[in-house]
């Protein structure tokens, strides 16, 4: 005869409860954060990203000169104490231009990814969850965008929007890059929704009579967050490169708004006489992209240790 061992049932309950509490004390998120903190490269990337945000916010205070004020008496000056990174052909201080240029890079990098996220994620959710014709329609449209080489599409979009300076010019660049990146999120989210919606806990939700919207936003979306977060961080790095490339081709935010890609292009012409002028804007782009890449990479390892 099968009998329970001779123990007090309340004790068993207590033990199980303690074990549960111990397991609960470290949620998957807390575990991920712990792993992230241990990664030196991710921290290094995070520090670069945060430092850049600070520079961009306080650009007016940090920059020693105006980024657009030209000084004909001080053109093409080599780096010196007065001009730590030298001056360009119009006598503008390179350091001040780089400090102000960080605003465009970061604003476009972050805003375009967020915009793509807010359009792409719902599209992917709906396509994956409802399937059928809606799914086919949305995904064919996304495939069409993906069939283009991304630079080609971004370039054509920028020509259609006609590049301008200032805030409007920046919004145009954000829009062009966001459109190119929407399908990436739609596909990603659709893929995880397709696998999640077959899980038993979703079936349980349905059996309990939970509505579609609640299932989508309270159960499906939170469970597909990890890849979205990683793609977003790494996507900022890619968007910053695309922005710099558009500016380099003369199709980004127009002067007088300072932009790293534009500065690099403008100064390549003088590379033999004043090599530092082309070097510094390029370095700025590189360090920024490296920062977001390192952080995104560390985040991926932290959220999904199997991928390491």
């Amino acid at each position, binding site marked *: 005869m099968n009998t329970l061992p001779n123990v007090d049932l309340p004790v068993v309950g207590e033990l199980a409860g303690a074990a549960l509490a111990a397991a609960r004390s470290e949620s998957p998120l807390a575990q991920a954060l712990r792993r992230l903190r241990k990664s030196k*490269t991710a921290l290094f990337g995070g520090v670069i990203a945060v430092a850049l945000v600070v520079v961009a916010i306080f650009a007016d205070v940090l920059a020693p000169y105006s980024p657009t004020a030209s000084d004909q008496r001080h053109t093409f000056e080599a780096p010196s104490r007065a001009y730590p990174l030298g001056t360009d052909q119009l006598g503008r201080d390179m350091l001040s231009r780089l400090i102000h240029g960080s605003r465009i890079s970061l604003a476009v990098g972050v805003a375009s990814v967020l915009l793509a996220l807010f359009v792409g994620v719902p599209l992917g959710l709906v396509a994956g969850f409802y399937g059928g014709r809606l799914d086919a329609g949305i995904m064919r449209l996304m495939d*069409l965008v993906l*069939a*283009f*080489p*991304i*630079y*080609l599409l971004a*370039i*054509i*979009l920028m*020509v*259609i929007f*006609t590049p301008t300076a200032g805030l409007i010019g920046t919004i145009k660049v954000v829009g062009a890059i966001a459109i190119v990146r929407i399908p990436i999120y739609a596909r990603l989210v659709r893929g995880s929704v397709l696998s999640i919606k077959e899980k038993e806990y979703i079936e349980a939700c349905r059996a309990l009579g939970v509505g579609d919207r609640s299932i989508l936003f309270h159960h499906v979306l939170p469970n597909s967050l990890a890849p979205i977060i990683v793609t977003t961080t790494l996507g900022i*790095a890619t968007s910053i*490169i695309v922005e*710099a*490339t558009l500016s*380099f*081709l003369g199709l980004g935010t127009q002067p007088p708004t300072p932009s790293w*890609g534009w500065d*690099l*292009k403008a100064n*390549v012409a003088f*590379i*033999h006489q004043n*090599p530092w002028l*082309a*070097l510094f804007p*390029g*370095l700025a*782009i*590189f360090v920024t*992209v*490296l920062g977001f*890449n*390192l952080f995104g*990479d560390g985040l991926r390892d932290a959220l999904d240790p199997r991928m390491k």
Partner: protein
Amino acid sequence: MRIYILRRLAEAVPTILMITLVVFVMMRSIPGDPVVALLGDAFTEEDAAKVRNEYGLDKPILVQYGLWLAKLAQGDWGTSILSGRPVLKDVLVRLPVTLELIVLSMAVALAIAIPAAIIGALRQNTWADYSATTIAMIGVSIPEFFAGVLLLLVFSVALHGTLPSSGWVYLPGTCPMLVCTGSVWANMMHVVMPAVALGIGRAALLTRLLRASMLEVIRTEYITTARAKGLAEKPVVLKHALKNALIPTVTVMGLQVGFLIGGAIVVEALFAMPGLGSFGIDAIIARDYQQVQGFALITAFAFVVINLIVDLTYSLLDPRIRYA
């Protein structure tokens, strides 16, 4: 196999048509038209109407697209509005330049990625692995044009013009002019910096990917078996492990072609190369509709062909994959 290739090419026709149609409609939605660029500022409305009629620009967009397709079916890619030259002729002159750039940049990428990934995977978590992965991370973060600028700074500025900073020397046989000094050596001198600039980012990406799949493959049982039966390390790594680890890498290489075409636009602009990239961007900016269509067509076609090559490479790497 031949039937498979033909079927794949036939299946690609709708994709190519779709891409060219979208580009066609998008280009015509850009404010302004090429007539202004062609006639200059001082022209009468009558002149403009005449030119528009000559190029069929006064017809509805879909009719224009239909006319373009009809001509294309006869092998006529149209005439550039700005240069007046046949688009197909220009595409054929510029294609070898971009093709050479892309193929060599892929070769650069593989030449760096394969040894780096093998070292990284075999000596996992040693200093050799860490330096390979760190360099790869740095490579991923360098945009093509900055890699190009760095190369220019070293080879053209610091080393006083060891390598030419711009221009092009055609390979013998690809030169468009009647009198032409095609030279393999001079061509190589011109292509090496652009190819490295374009290849270095791909090298970094492929290193990371190949290292990860090598790590996976090297722990499988057939590798243990190969070692257990006394096979030397070299054939184990190169024949058994690398060949299988290459399959995902080939897929990603195929996906990277879109980036390479975009990268070619940038690198060609930086090094003043007469390739398809500069052909395309000049046309887009000048709203030279016919030339843009030619560029979109050849790009879409390249996409399809490269994806086909990627699929065919699978069966070379893994004989279990067969296409009938």
